[in-house]
Every structure is written in C-alpha cells, then in structure tokens.
C-alpha cells in the first residue's frame, strides 16, 4: 500500500485523482456505486453567478476515441450551489474544488468573494470554457486578460486558487506564467480542444452550438505535452487532465509534471474510472517500489 497523498496549492489530497468539473456533477449520480470519500477530491460542476440554462441541444457528439460537448455551463448559480449542494458535499470526506466561471472580471471576483467564507477547499477559476459567448475561452487566450481576471479573483478571496487553462493557444506556458505572476497557487490543464463535427446527411453541425470542446483519450498526447511544458515553465504546481482513462495514463501525466490529475470524459465510459485509477496507481506504485506517488511527479527525463 503506497502513500497516495499529494499536495496541490497547499491543500493535501488523500490521493491524486479528482473527477473533472462538468463530468461528475456534484457527485450525487455516482454515490450509489462507491463512496465519494474514495476520491482525492471533486471539482464540481462549473458555477456561475446566476443560473444558466446552457446551450440548445444537441450538446454531445462522438469522435474517434473522444467526444465533443457544448453544454454551456448549465448550472443553478452560486447561491444554489452554496445552499443546496455544498452542505451535502462537505459531509463526503473528500476535497471540494469549486469551479467558477464568469462573463466579466467583476463577476469572477464576485463569485470568488461569495466562496470566501464557505467550506470549499480550493477554487478552480475556469478561464477556458469554449462553449460560452462572453468570458470563457476569451479570458484564457490572452495573457493580460488571464492575468487580470486571476488577480481580481486572488484579491477577492483567500482560498487556494487554481486557474484552468485553455489548450487552444499558441503558447500555454505564456498564459501559465501570466496567471502565476498574478497570484495563482496552481494551474489545471488542459480544458477541451475546440472541435466540430458535421452530419453529412443533414449538412448541419452535429452540435447546435456548431463547435464544442473535444475531450477523451484522443487529446491525451496534447495534454501530456502541455503539462510537461507548463510544469517546466512555472513554479506553482500543475493539475494535469485531458484524456486520462487508465492508471497508466495518470502515472504518465504525473511523470510529465502533474502533482495531481483530473479524470473527465473517461467517467462517461466507465463510471468506476476514478476508483479504478486510484487502485491502479496504488498497484503500480507497489509493483515499482514507489513508496509515495508524489515521488514520480515530473520525473520524466527528456532526451
């Protein structure tokens, strides 16, 4: 039994596996399979200041070893999260990461301020949602804007702050350095790659939003590359995600430089994926004489 504890932005997680925001709701749908206390933490459904109904369907398209989504941050708003979801979540003995998204810098700051006194362990500032008109990716593709929104949230809230980055940029390391300089305690990456599918029978995009975010094993190599580049560009820890579906993928991502990892689309294929990955990491550590999983973080030796 290896020591699976990892520390991210000063917060200790019992293991490095965290269901990614938007793929796990608030955990309610998976509790009937295993206790949420098995998880290192949960990054909850992206929360906005006010309720959002989300995008018009269809919102899902399958792709080779992946999928597109354009849910559009459908959620009940911050008040509802704090009153209806958080009280239940805090009883689950796992770390709670509040994923927040705003359409303006002020909104992001206001959201963060609302969480200041709450029981959430960490804030994940989403500056990379590809499926919303304002804010979203617009924040994540410009160094100055990314820095400004990070600074505003940093000043509005003292919780550990992780910023979720977009892969749809020329240099993710520039964005990472900019949010680090603006007070981020960690970065998480990658959010989805912007993609599109067309139904050749109807000649309409499969997604009503026309484009959507690509996730799943298909994007894993891009995620590993960006995590490796970013971990070598900033001093703050990196939470790696993007196509992880097995314990071996998780180990690979950690060797690339991720202090913890998030599992997303893989959960749709296998609802047990997070716990299978946790058990698999433990077995891999034991087989390979790794006493503590944190030892492997960033241990890849480039040629």
């Amino acid at each position, binding site marked *: 039994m290896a020591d699976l504890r990892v520390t991210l932005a000063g917060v200790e997680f019992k293991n490095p596996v965290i269901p990614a925001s*938007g*793929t*796990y*709701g608030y955990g*309610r*749908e*998976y509790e*009937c*399979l295993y206790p949420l206390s098995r998880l290192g933490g949960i990054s909850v*459904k992206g929360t906005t200041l006010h309720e959002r*109904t*989300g*995008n*018009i*369907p*269809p*919102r*899902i*398209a*399958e*792709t*080779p*070893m*992946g*999928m597109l*989504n354009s*849910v559009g941050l*459908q959620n009940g708003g911050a008040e509802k999260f704090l009153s209806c979801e958080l009280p239940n979540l805090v009883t689950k003995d796992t770390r709670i990461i509040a994923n927040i998204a705003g359409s303006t810098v002020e909104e992001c700051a206001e959201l963060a301020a609302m969480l200041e006194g709450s029981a959430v362990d960490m804030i994940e500032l989403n500056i990379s949602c590809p499926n919303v008109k304002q804010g979203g990716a617009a924040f994540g593709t410009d160094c100055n804007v990314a820095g400004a929104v990070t600074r505003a949230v940093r000043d509005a809230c003292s919780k550990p702050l992780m910023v979720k980055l977009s892969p749809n940029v020329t240099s993710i390391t520039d964005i990472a350095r900019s949010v680090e300089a603006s007070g981020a305690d960690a970065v998480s990456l990658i959010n989805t790659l912007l993609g599109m599918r067309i139904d050749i029978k109807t000649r309409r995009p*499969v997604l009503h939003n026309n484009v959507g975010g690509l996730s*799943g*094993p298909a994007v894993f190599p891009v995620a590993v590359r960006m995590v490796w580049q970013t971990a070598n560009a900033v001093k703050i820890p990196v939470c790696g995600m993007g196509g992880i579906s097995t314990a071996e993928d998780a180990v690979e991502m950690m060797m690339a430089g991720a202090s913890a990892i998030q599992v997303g*689309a893989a*959960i*749709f*294929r*296998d*609802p*047990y994926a997070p716990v299978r990955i946790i058990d698999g990491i433990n077995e891999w550590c034991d087989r390979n004489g790794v006493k503590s999983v944190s030892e492997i973080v960033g241990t890849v030796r480039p040629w």
Partner: protein
Amino acid sequence: MYKQGLYPIIGKSASAKGIFDITVLCPEAAELAQAGQFAQLLAPSFFLRRPISICGIDKQKGTLRFVFEVRGSGTEELSHLNVGDNIDLIAPLGHGFTVTDGRAVCVGGGIGVPPMVGIAAEYGDRAAVISGFRSASAVILQDDLRAAGCETILCTDDGSAGIHGFVTTALEEYLQSNKTDIIYACGPMPMLKAVASIARKHSIRCEVSLEQRMACGVGACLGCAAVLEREGREVFAHVCKDGPVFDAKEVRFDG
C-alpha cells in the same frame, strides 16, 4: 439506483432486417428495472456508450431484453456480440413510464416499438398497442405483444401488412370507440408530436419517450438536454435522468 458490469448474453435473434434482439442475464439490474427505462451498452471500440431502451424485464429470470436497430458502426459492433459473450452495460437508467390501473394505448413507430413492449406487458389486456412500420419486412414484436395479452393494431406505410396508413390515424379511430386513460408513445419526433396533439384534443394523459445524443447517461454531464416548457418558460431537462419518459404536455416537439 443503477448497476454497471459485464453481463452474459443468454439469448440473441435477428427480429427483422438490421434489428437485433438480445437477452442479458443481469439480475441486480433487472431487479431495479421499470418499463420505459434504458441501458447504456458499450461497443468496445467506441468511446461513448449507446443508450438502448429496455424492451423486456424478467425479474424472476433476472434478465433484461434489448431490441435495437443497427444505425451506425457502434450498434453494428453490438450486433456482432453473440450468446455467451459478455456485454458491458449500465442499467437501469432514467425515469420510466407511469403505470396506472386504467386502460392504456401504446403507440410505437419503428424502433420506437420495443419500449412499448415493457409498458404494454404491465397492462396486459387493458392495453392496445398500435405499431407502425415502413413495411411488412420491418414488423417486429407483434407476437410478444399478443402473448402479453394486449390488443395489437398493426400499421405499415405501404400497406404490406396490417392497416395501410399511419399510427396516428389508427389512434384517432381507436379513441373514437375505446375509453382510454393514458397514451404512451415512442418513435420519430413528428409522430410523437401528432400523438401528443391527439391526446390533448381528447384530453387524455400522454407520456412520450424521447431520444437525445448522450454521454454519461446518469445525469452528471447534462449533455442530453431536451427542450421542455414549464410555466410558459423554456427549460432544459435531461433525457437520461428526467427522461427518457416525459409528460407530452411539457415537451417542445420542434426542439
């Protein structure tokens, strides 16, 4: 409450061209299942699961029956599974049909007929099932429905079997002469829309089973939105959790 696991296929047959009929031994899932619910079946070479409606539930035998159409390469791969193979499924999922103690009419169009078998069985001789198909060669499940004690009314677009015409005409006709407490329907959107308006006209309660592109299947990802109207405002419900069965009054049939 649902289960996920690898379960053996204990029965398989081809009902009609491109339509496959498999029975899976999954006692813990069958125990929980209700008419109108669905399962997420995994075609190993594809990333997302395929949502397939439950056609039959046998809690004694601990089996679930699925009758599905080969629509793409995913369902094609599923159709290659044989008796003795294990299938990875998540079931039961979603919100099924409301069972009443009155008289029911079940209206199914094409591959919308399978989910009617489960609910019709709950009613036995208190149910009439109106099934519509392109032609005689596409007709499925009529024997099963009769075996369940239901009255069966068969329609085909080309008249090669049963009544020459649409299920909606047959439904209108049936309602003239038969007291009906509830209508269940599954099939193409235009058919559901027509059935719903007929039900409204006769002020008969109507439940429809909807389809949508789906990811998690359990209500976590909010991917499979369906457009509903509640208190005059448009809301997005989710087919996998709030559905697949919805009160027809709430459904915006033109999306």
